[in-house]
């Protein structure tokens, strides 16, 4: 009886335990299924994350390549944007007054350039160039008496507005506003100080007037620009210009300029065992517009150890009766070297003479020293100069004009 009583709960409990085990098994199965499902979902998430990482890497790689920001219907086409800012603290002393100016260095003015080109096939290409300068208080325009930045020089001025067509064998044709064939032929210079020193030096204080000696500052009526003119051909103008292909370092050019002016030029550039040679010469006819013809030549030689010698000469034959030829001479000795790791250093000393500029028997003399320090990583040149203009005008005595300054040209 006792056994029965004791065993009865056990017998009654057996089915209950079995039910629990069954429930546990069922629950266990369900949990296993749930875990497997979660595992599958986790794997899907991992796969999705991996795909996203690959997509991000692909986008990053594509953006870092030279892919276009904009699209064009024309293949093999590019548009380049470039420019520079060139500012200096400019000093002038005309013998009566001295003054400091915050000026734009017109040796190479502040400007913006858009250049487009397209390659049509292996031989033919075409392009366009828009270049404009923005000058505030240009060194060309400053005068000792000014009180504010000269309004006329706060300008947006054309430099080049042209199209061109080039064939590797036939040459290059330009149409529009730009350099004529003779532009630059009196300015050949390998010295490395061109940003502050060169045959075009008269833009540094061009509007400054020579003062009569002993008169308390009375102007002679003759400015730096009157007495010092590089006579660099027909400069920039509206023209059609043709350049020949370069053959053995020689390039020939000619242009037909608005107003029926014309010019021809020859240029040469070559290097021999580290010696660099650059030569240029030109002839221009400005008779229809300015009643004069002219010729110019310049050359520069630079040795592999950095020393350079440059020289220029130009002459303009004026048609006006009783006017003698105007002549310009220029010579520069330069040297460039690696003073620091940040960029090259260049120094130079130059000298110029003019004769009969803006009047018979007028003579002018100029000399200066200049230095340039390049900072290659910043696309920047720091520079400094000191110079002097002397005038020899018939029947009058004038004070010399001293100029100087420091500045920087930054190419962006």
């Amino acid at each position, binding site marked *: 009886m006792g056994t029965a009583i004791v065993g009865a709960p056990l017998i009654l409990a057996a089915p209950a335990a079995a039910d629990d085990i069954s429930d546990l098994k069922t629950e266990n199965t369900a949990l296993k299924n749930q875990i497997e499902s979660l595992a599958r979902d986790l794997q899907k998430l991992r796969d999705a994350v991996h795909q996203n990482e690959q997509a991000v890497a692909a986008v990053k790689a594509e953006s870092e390549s030279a892919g276009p920001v904009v699209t064009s219907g024309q293949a093999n*086409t590019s548009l380049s944007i470039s420019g520079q800012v060139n500012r200096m603290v400019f000093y002038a002393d005309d013998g009566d007054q001295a003054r400091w100016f915050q000026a734009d260095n017109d040796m190479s003015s502040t400007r913006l350039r858009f250049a487009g080109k397209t390659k049509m096939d292996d031989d033919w290409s075409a392009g366009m160039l828009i270049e404009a300068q923005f000058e505030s208080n240009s060194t060309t325009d400053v005068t000792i008496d000014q009180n504010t930045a000269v309004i006329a020089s706060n300008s947006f001025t054309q430099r080049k507005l042209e199209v061109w067509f080039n064939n590797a064998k036939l040459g290059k044709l330009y149409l529009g506003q730009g350099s004529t064939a003779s532009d630059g032929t009196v300015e050949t210079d390998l010295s490395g100080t061109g940003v502050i020193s060169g045959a075009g030096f008269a833009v540094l204080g061009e509007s400054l007037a020579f003062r009569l000696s002993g008169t308390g500052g009375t102007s002679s009526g003759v400015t730096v620009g009157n007495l010092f003119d590089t006579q660099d051909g027909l400069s920039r103008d509206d023209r059609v210009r043709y350049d020949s292909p370069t053959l053995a370092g020689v390039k020939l050019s000619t242009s037909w300029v608005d107003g029926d002016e014309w010019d021809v030029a020859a240029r*040469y550039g070559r290097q021999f065992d580290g010696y660099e040679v650059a030569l240029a010469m030109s002839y221009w006819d400005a008779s229809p517009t300015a009643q004069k013809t002219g010729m110019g030549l310049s050359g520069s030689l630079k040795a592999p150890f950095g020393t350079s010698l440059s020289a220029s000469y130009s002459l303009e034959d004026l048609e006006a009766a009783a006017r003698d030829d105007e002549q310009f001479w220029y010579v520069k000795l330069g040297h460039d070297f690696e003073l620091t790791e940040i960029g090259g250093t260049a120094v130079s000393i130059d000298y110029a003479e003019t004769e009969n500029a803006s009047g018979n028997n007028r003579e002018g003399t100029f000399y200066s020293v200049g230095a340039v320090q390049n900072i290659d990583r910043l696309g920047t040149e720091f520079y400094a100069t000191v110079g002097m203009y002397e005038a020899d005008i018939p029947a009058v005595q004038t004070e010399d004009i001293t100029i100087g300054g420091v500045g920087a040209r930054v190419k962006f």
Partner: protein
Amino acid sequence: MQHAKPFFSCGYMKFATALLVTVMLAVSACGGKPLHTSKWQGTADEMKTGPGLFSGDDGEFTVDAE
């Protein structure tokens, strides 16, 4: 201020012109290697070639079409 007569004279310059032309023709026949065009084909007031502050090694921002 009176200054000395200029050193150069027209006669010397005519000779120098003829000499320069002769030198150009003679040197052009003597081989050599090309000189970068920016050193002898441009004008003195051109922008300097080389890298720019923001534009990098090319010195210009370029948009290439596809």
